[in-house]
């Protein structure tokens, strides 16, 4: 029946919370709700970020890229890496931890059908060496393997719709070559994939030999070497990029200054520069989709503002509740001080009560948030078409990781304690004489 000091502290804290059940439930529900919202908002931006990385790194960029420009004359820049096998050798030696590397041709061309035309980026790929491609793309019709045959093309449904074509139809691709003249090739549509938002409106895929034929470039030339990393190395991307720059520089290549923009945004400035021949450009995935990561930043910004406001509200709520509790318990505090409780023990007693409420409420909140997130993920909630464009996914995907849950619990519990600190300090400074007062 005997008990330790901590046990009695916990008993006092817990029983006071139970005693003021309505107040505790109200405040606890508010804290839990804010925690759940924090988890959901954070899960949403993490989910979008992950989808974005996943989609972007399959469709249009590696985690780290070695691209570049080749200039026949100072004013004519082509997104070409010549003699890419030698560059690839340097890459493989410099980044041994990579998962794999692919090379792709880059271009911008006009697609013409019987009934329409559109401008799009075209990517030349070797489908047999693209292990992740099929996991991200959802085909509406056709077969991905057929893209191995020369003279074929993969379109997205929005493009096919605009061009009024289906699998089996023919298209003409028209593009300016490095020599300044226009060239055309005819291709057959072998696959149509579901749209993946922003990136898929600007992209279509043809075999790399066809791209070389279109642009009349050499067999040993490509557009970019895309390096894919394992998840554990995602945090080291800037370091890996820096390492690559140094290694390529030492191997005798001319390297462009780091510039966090997509390659197609660099044409203008590169064309204005006064050099000819080959220069390599090392970029990362964020650079290549910088024109669209603002959506992610906006989402994170909105979440941040929302969370700050909500946290401010619970801080006010907690402080208010504490003032009420301390006023009600003035005599008790005075009594405890009179019978020999030190100030810091009174402080601890009140802090403990808030921390206990905070901890319980945040755990409930995190579990609620995670449950709602799991429910939304399982329900495959369709994203409105307008938003799909930015989220790059047809379904809502919230990524609630364990680390996020722990972080939410720690942060909000800490906020609870911090909010309770000043009132608790005031309680600790109450004079023991108040115990004797006949009032209150």
């Amino acid at each position, binding site marked *: 029946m*005997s008990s*330790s000091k901590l046990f009695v502290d916990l008993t006092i804290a817990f029983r006071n919370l139970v005693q003021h059940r309505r107040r505790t439930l109200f405040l606890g529900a508010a804290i839990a709700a804010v925690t759940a919202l924090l988890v959901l908002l954070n899960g949403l931006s993490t989910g979008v970020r992950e989808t974005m990385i996943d989609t972007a790194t399959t469709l249009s960029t590696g985690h780290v890229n070695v691209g570049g420009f080749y200039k026949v004359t100072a004013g004519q820049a082509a997104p070409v890496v010549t003699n890419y096998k030698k560059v690839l050798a340097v890459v493989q030696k410099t980044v041994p931890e990579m998962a794999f590397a692919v090379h792709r041709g880059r271009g911008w061309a006009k697609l013409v059908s019987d009934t329409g035309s559109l401008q799009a980026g075209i990517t030349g790929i070797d489908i047999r060496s693209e292990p992740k491609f099929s996991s991200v793309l959802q085909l509406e019709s056709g077969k991905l393997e057929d893209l191995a045959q020369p003279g074929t093309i993969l379109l997205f449904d929005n493009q096919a719709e605009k061009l009024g074509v289906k699998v089996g139809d023919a298209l003409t691709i028209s593009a300016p070559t490095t020599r300044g003249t226009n060239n055309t090739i005819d291709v057959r549509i072998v696959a149509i994939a579901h749209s993946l938002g922003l990136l898929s409106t600007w992209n279509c895929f043809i075999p790399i030999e066809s791209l070389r034929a279109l642009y009349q470039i050499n067999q040993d030339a490509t557009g970019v070497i895309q390096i894919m990393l394992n998840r554990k190395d995602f945090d080291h991307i800037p370091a890996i990029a820096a390492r690559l720059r140094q290694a390529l520089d030492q191997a005798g290549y001319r390297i462009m200054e780091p510039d966090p923009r997509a390659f197609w945004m660099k044409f203008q400035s590169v064309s204005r520069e006064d050099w000819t021949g080959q220069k390599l450009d090392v970029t990362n995935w964020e650079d290549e989709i910088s024109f669209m990561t603002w959506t992610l930043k906006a989402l994170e910004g909105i979440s941040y503002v929302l969370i700050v406001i909500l946290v401010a509200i619970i801080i006010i709520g907690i402080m208010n509740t504490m003032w009420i509790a301390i006023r009600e318990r003035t*005599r008790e505090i005075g009594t*405890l001080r009179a019978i*020999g409780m030190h100030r810091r023990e009174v402080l601890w007693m009140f802090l403990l009560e808030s921390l206990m409420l905070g901890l319980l409420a945040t755990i409930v909140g995190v579990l609620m948030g995670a449950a709602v997130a799991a429910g939304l993920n399982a329900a495959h909630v369709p994203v409105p078409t307008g938003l799909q464009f930015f989220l790059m996914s047809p379904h809502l995907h919230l990524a609630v990781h364990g680390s996020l849950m722990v972080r939410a619990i720690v942060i909000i519990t800490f906020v609870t304690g911090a909010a309770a600190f000043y009132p608790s300090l005031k309680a600790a400074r109450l004079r023991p*004489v108040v115990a*004797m007062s006949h009032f209150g």
Partner: protein
Amino acid sequence: MKAIVSVREAVKNYILGNVVVPALRGVTLDVVEGDFLAIAGPSGSGKTTLLNLIGCVDTPTSGTVEVAGKDTRQLSERELTDLRLHTIGFIFQSFNLVSVLTVFQNIELPLLLQRKLNGPERAQRVAALLERVGLREYGAHRPSELSGGQRQRVAIARALVTRPQLVLADEPTANLDSVTGAHILDLMRELNRTEKTTFIFSTHDQSVMAHANAVVRLADGKLVDRVTPAQAAAETGLPA
């Protein structure tokens, strides 16, 4: 016998806005170990103020208060708290138990604050006191489940659990009926005899004073005299 409390020319002024309220106007008093002393006087005469000074919950505006040989004006807040924790027990007029703790936990609390005894030692001491105040069956009850007299007995047990040299009680029976009050006084008196604990309690009730060794009478912040209970009872003409 040794003085456990020694008050010299103690003055206490309260500041209310810009008015100075003199609560004690120079009180000198010695209390020896083992005493069972009543402080009597009409409302507003300064009984609570004097007990606060002796109980180290307040310090005098001028003059000195020595408790267990220590001048309270020389002590820091922390040292005063330690002095209260280890030397003094308190019994309050409105019992002042911690409502969310059980009777057992309330009595054990000062021991936990002291951190001197281990669990079994504490349990033994609390159980003995519960027995002593006649509440053996009530350890697991909450204070709200007890009568006023039972609550004050819990408060007495809490005040005595650390075996303090001095127990202070500010009108311990004012919230009790006279029969229950008399029982409480009997209990205090008995503990005073067996444990040799010094008791100082305030009251303005003649029948309560009758239990004391001596009665110190206060009026208007001054010590009037120190008499026997019999004298106090006889001189009904005095302010009481």
